[in-house]
């Protein structure tokens, strides 16, 4: 049976991973909001290193919950962060991955905490951040361009992630998310079923390259400051290899238009975001292909939202975010699909 997550338990674990360290302690353990698939905690690590120096470091611990919105592999998320550490794509440093549930009852990983930045998607709509929307938007879509441009084989990610064929990306992704909806839907979803049928009848062209796909690249999953700089891309839990237009389509999804207008992610209009991404990635967003991936992302979103409803109804996870997802997000996702199909 799982016991409480305590500072002493975490310190005991870290002590086993730090060569030559002594007096290892953890303080300030606090759960924070962060990511939908794992519990996220903030803590401060203190220890004496082999040279006798006192080291203090703010850290983040991400632990598997009993039930999640989405089923993801923590080793893949960990590897994706590590692959981009120190690159043009800002990410926090990953420190330890623990697959054994023994130390803290569930698998987890520990990373550096990037301190002092904002992540709220709705925070972008108001001053002082709204005054920097152009700058933040430029950085956001440029960084996605860098992710799309990267060579996943050179990053070594093919060791953990399946490498699809360019013409197999769409089939794999659509099949996966349709199966998620089949498995988890608690009531009929006629709009998204119509979208799935359309996507099957009108397949996209093969991917122009196989890219790293972040999987959840949107406002809310990066850390920003008042000057408009982005300091960390977070939540790589759905990372995989595939068509780079998948990520672009997810970020452009209308459900992230919290301001109610065309500013995607509350920052820049759709066409401007695409221009920035194309320039940064050196790739092309063919309009018909991008349309397919935008509609596909409505299916993916609905897969997540119906799974949220099921997780809540099953009683495995009663976080109120799941109700919000099951009601607001699911309906907004239907409206996004209707808009893309020219019905709204």
């Amino acid at each position, binding site marked *: 049976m799982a016991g409480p997550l305590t500072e002493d338990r975490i310190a005991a674990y870290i002590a086993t991973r730090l060569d030559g360290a002594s007096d290892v302690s953890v303080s300030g353990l*606090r759960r*924070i909001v962060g990511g939908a698939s794992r519990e996220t905690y903030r803590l401060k690590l203190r220890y004496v290193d082999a040279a006798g120096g006192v080291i203090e470091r703010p850290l983040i611990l991400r632990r598997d919950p009993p039930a999640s919105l989405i089923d993801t592999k923590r080793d893949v998320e960990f590897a994706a962060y590590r692959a981009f550490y120190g690159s043009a794509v800002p990410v926090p440093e990953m420190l330890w991955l623990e697959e054994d549930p023994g130390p803290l009852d569930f698998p987890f990983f520990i990373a550096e905490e990037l301190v002092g930045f904002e992540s709220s998607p709705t925070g972008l709509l108001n001053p002082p951040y709204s005054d920097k929307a152009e700058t933040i938007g430029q950085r956001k879509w440029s960084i996605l361009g860098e992710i799309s441009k990267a060579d996943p084989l050179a990053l070594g990610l093919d060791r953990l992630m399946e490498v699809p064929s360019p013409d197999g990306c769409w089939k794999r992704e659509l099949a996966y998310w349709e199966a998620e909806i089949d498995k988890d839907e608690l009531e*009929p979803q006629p*709009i998204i079923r119509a979208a799935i049928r359309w996507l099957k009848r009108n397949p996209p062209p093969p991917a122009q390259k196989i890219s790293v796909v972040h999987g959840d690249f949107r406002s809310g999953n990066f850390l920003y400051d008042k000057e408009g700089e982005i300091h960390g891309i977070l939540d790589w839990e759905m990372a995989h290899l595939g068509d780079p237009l998948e990520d672009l389509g997810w970020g452009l999804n209308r459900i992230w238009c919290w301001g*109610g207008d065309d500013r995607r992610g509350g920052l820049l209009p759709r066409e401007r975001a695409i221009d920035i991404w194309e320039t940064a990635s050196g790739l092309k967003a063919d309009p018909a292909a991008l349309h397919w991936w935008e509609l596909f992302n409505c299916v993916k979103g609905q897969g997540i939202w119906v799974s949220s409803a099921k997780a809540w109804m099953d009683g495995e996870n009663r976080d109120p975010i799941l109700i919000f997802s099951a009601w607001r997000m699911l309906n907004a996702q239907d409206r996004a699909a209707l808009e893309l199909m020219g019905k709204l």
Partner: protein
Amino acid sequence: MTPDTRSIITDLAGRMAMVFAPDLKSPYMAGSAGLTAAVLMMVAEEGDRTAHRLVEENRAIRAILTSAATADPPADLAARIRTLAAGGDDDLHVSALQAANNELRAALSDLQAHVETRADAAAKTLNAAIWSELVASTGRRAFSNMGF
């Protein structure tokens, strides 16, 4: 009964967001309380309208299903549609209305899959009516002040 459910839940949600949440020391608990308040606001809105939107929607779908014979659906689907179209909402409990709605929307989806790729006028007319109803269904489920 007065005060009504919507007023009560809306007030409690406001208290949670504006009075209780700001006093919580844990950022996670404060955030969770704020989110709970937002969900309660949605519950207040949905609770007031659920029966109305389900009755309205069930009635609209039955009307479409009643006209479905013109599109010549396969025998098993046609029989299912006839049964559903002849039904009604005598039991106004939300659970009963929702169960009927699930059956009706599933049949509507199957009917659309049957007609959506056909070029004949009957199928096109029916498909347009189904799309119109699906658009209306998202309007019935939309919440106030929630962006897109």
